[in-house]
């Protein structure tokens, strides 16, 4: 299990290597990439801020969920912070599993859950200003004790 929040550019190959295994028949990766537009506005730059220790703890919790729900799966989750350029990856997830449907399901579950419970925030800069994105997520509130 490879879990890391980092300022340096993400390396898809590192995530893939971390989940390769002789009994894994399917390996699925997801890369979230900074787009050049959002809601019709041209995005010029983007920044991510994390509550670092808690973000890694929540990413680890997601990884443990995945391994429990999809037996014999392996997972890596890398998230970047700081300023990113268009086309750079903000998040990379790799999942291997004995069969391909499991690898797809587990990888999609991981990114969907990450977007709901991992304390990381995105700030988008447009040509005429910048804004923090804040999604309404029921899951993070529900998961509170």
């Amino acid at each position, binding site marked *: 299990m490879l879990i890391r929040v980092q300022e340096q550019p993400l390396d898809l190959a590192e995530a893939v290597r971390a989940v390769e295994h002789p009994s894994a028949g399917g390996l699925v990766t997801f890369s979230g990439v900074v787009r050049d537009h959002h809601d019709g506005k041209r995005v010029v730059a983007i920044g991510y801020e994390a509550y670092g220790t808690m973000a890694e703890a929540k990413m680890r919790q997601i990884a443990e969920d995945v391994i429990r729900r999809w037996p014999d799966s392996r997972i890596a989750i890398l*998230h970047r912070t700081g300023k990113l350029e268009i086309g750079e990856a903000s998040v990379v997830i790799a999942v291997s599993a004995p069969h391909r449907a499991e690898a797809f399901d587990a990888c999609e579950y991981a990114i969907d859950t990450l977007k709901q419970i991992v304390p990381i925030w995105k700030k988008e800069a447009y040509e005429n200003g910048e804004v*923090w994105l804040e999604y309404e997520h029921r899951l*993070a509130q529900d998961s509170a004790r």
Partner: protein
Amino acid sequence: MRLFARYRELAGTGSLELDVPAKSTALDVFDRVAESYPDMRSMRQSTLMAIESEFVKPQTELTDGEELALMPPVSGGC
């Protein structure tokens, strides 16, 4: 306590030391901070709260020395 993203910018700092009465809840602390930064008030319902890196309900009471984090809804990933 810790503040993140928009809250950090509003407060001009990511961490504050605060003395609060015994049995104060996470929400009590939010309200106290929001007195100083009125732009936070409209986000009272959607604020995420964590104690020692675990999400908690707003009614959760703080224990001596614990670290509370106030956070806008998350938007990481992609």
